[in-house]
């Protein structure tokens, strides 16, 4: 099942199981079905549970907060995460605080699905990750699935959760294909996954950088280095315990995240390891992050913008003080193709 089909599958299962779940968003009745992530949903559940809204992201987020406090479970769908910036007042001032602010008398079960774009010149305003913004604020949770199985399990967990959850969906994972367990299951929020075990260094990766880390780990194996790869999956609450456990074993940490570095999730991981496992560190940790500029449109500079497996590989070799003759791999990130 493709990643995008897994998203759709989770949506369908949740709506079948719980009649309070509904979908709301701008342009969701589009025949392209938000890249197929909503195929058949409107047809199966009808317009009563499929709320098309004009361009009014702020209002529809508030509408969802209001509906959520009356027992419904809205799934807000944004074609681009960049549009979520129009809704920060509702998310941070309202949704995140609602439950505590009123002494925990109401909960706000709310999912914000936000797609991160990349490639084909989508440029500065259609390619941000914004992981960190949602991971900073208490009252919000944030998840970034990296494979079809988690795409489904984390979306179901997000829908089940009684607070607002930002579900960050990287567009260029949508076509990834893998076997997915049938039926209803949840991938618990707040648990990282050890996706490859190793002994020489820990690579804590976020989102699409997990695939890059796996490529790097495979290449590193050729040069005699054994890397453990973690898929952080949930950014808030952040499962730093799993990272620390791994670093206690490996003694070395490379963090790989597609987002800006200052005040990032990657930085938070490094900070917690330094605070809680300093003595385990045999080398200074390294972050592989975006350069500190906006994402450029032109292909040549865009190619220079995104770090990948090669940079991770080099970072691991450097924290391991390992300068092998082995070939450095090339970055071969799948390119996102086509105009939209």
């Amino acid at each position: 099942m493709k990643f995008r089909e897994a998203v759709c599958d989770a949506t369908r299962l949740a709506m079948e199981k719980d009649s309070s779940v509904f979908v709301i968003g701008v342009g969701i009745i589009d025949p392209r079905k938000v890249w197929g992530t909503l195929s058949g949903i409107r047809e199966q559940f009808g317009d009563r549970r499929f709320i098309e809204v004009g361009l009014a992201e702020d209002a529809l987020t508030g509408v969802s907060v209001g509906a959520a406090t009356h027992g419904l479970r809205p799934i807000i769908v944004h074609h681009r995460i960049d549009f979520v910036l129009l809704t920060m007042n509702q998310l941070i001032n309202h949704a995140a605080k609602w439950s505590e602010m009123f002494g925990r008398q109401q909960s706000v079960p709310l999912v914000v699905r936000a797609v991160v774009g990349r490639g084909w010149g989508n440029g500065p305003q259609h390619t941000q990750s914004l992981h960190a913004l949602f991971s900073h604020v208490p009252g919000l949770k944030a998840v970034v699935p990296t494979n079809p199985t988690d795409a489904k399990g984390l979306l179901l967990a997000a829908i089940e959760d009684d607070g607002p959850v930002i579900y960050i969906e990287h567009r260029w994972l949508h076509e990834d294909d893998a076997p997915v367990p049938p039926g209803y299951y949840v991938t618990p929020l707040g648990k990282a996954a050890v996706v490859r075990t190793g002994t020489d260094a820990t690579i804590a990766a976020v989102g699409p950088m997990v695939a890059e880390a796996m490529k790097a780990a495979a290449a590193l194996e050729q040069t005699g280095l054994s890397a453990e790869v973690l898929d952080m999956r949930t950014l808030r609450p952040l499962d730093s315990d799993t990272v620390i456990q791994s670093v206690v074993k490996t003694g070395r940490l490379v963090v790989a995240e597609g987002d800006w570095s200052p005040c990032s999730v990657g930085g938070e991981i490094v900070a917690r390891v330094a605070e809680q496992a300093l003595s385990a560190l045999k080398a200074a940790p390294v972050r592989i992050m975006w350069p500190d500029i906006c994402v450029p449109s032109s292909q040549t500079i865009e190619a220079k913008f995104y770090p990948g497996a090669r940079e991770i590989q080099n970072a691991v070799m450097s924290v391991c003080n390992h300068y092998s003759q082995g070939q450095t791999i090339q970055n071969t990130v799948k390119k996102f193709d086509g105009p939209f």
Partner: protein
Amino acid sequence: MKTDGQRELKKQLYYRMLLLRRSEERIVANYHLREMRSPPHMYMGHEAVAAGVCAALRREDVIYPYYRSHGWYLAKGGDLNEMIAELHGRATGCSRGWGGSMHLIHIPSGVMGTTAIVSGNISHAAGAALAFRMKGLNAISVAIFGDGATEEGVFHETLNFAAVYKLPMIFVCENNIYATNTHIKDRQAQTDIFRRADGYGMPGMRIDGNDVLRVYDETGRAVERARIGDGPTLLEYMTYRYLEHCGVNEDLELGYRTEDEVRRWMSIDPVHTAEKFVSEQERKNMESEISAKLDEAFAFAKSSPWPETLIAEEAGA
């Protein structure tokens, strides 16, 4: 019969307004004790709006007031003890001490959580209306906001959304001419707020917000429309705030409004005007009943425990 009903209604309306007025007077009188450590946005002067609107609603209908919410909370039937306790920051407060004056809630009576972010509540009310529709309930939802709030983009977005879906809701604007201390003429080029309803194909009208009977009647008509599925209405009630924007004092010394203006509005004071709805004896009974309730509420608040822990299960983030 009909006249009896009318008289009963008038009595109720007067009682509600008096309760609002006396409650806030008591808050004003006690504020200097520094026991209510919360920024209060006093409702005095507006009483006819909350009393009239809420009288036209059922208990299962919900209201989404803004931070100037003491009056709305009480008019809709929110528990007085819990409100006064909340102002005192006690664990028995309607928000358990976490919210204070700007964040009141009383779910059993349909007072939904209020926000300190101007206009933040408008779309919440639409969400409640959507939920009622989806759940097949016959309840309606009321968004309540000031003249200033109508300048925020979300006001426009929500009117359009509510109109498209013909939501069972009402938009109630309390136009008191000022946003903080800025006159509406310095903020809006065209100051008939109700006229904007036309842009969304929605009925809109301006009503004397100090005339509690007119408030009750017009709200009733809008409630009826909403209830039978004819969609939302924008009601603009003209009224006036007596005290400073936030706090318990008068503010003539600031100079943004004239004594004359304040006096003109006080001369049509909604509570005083409605005194004629009741007999002298009835009024006296009401006064003493309310006074006793307030004594009790303040005693309850002051003897209530403080909230203790920051949070039981501090979410590991």
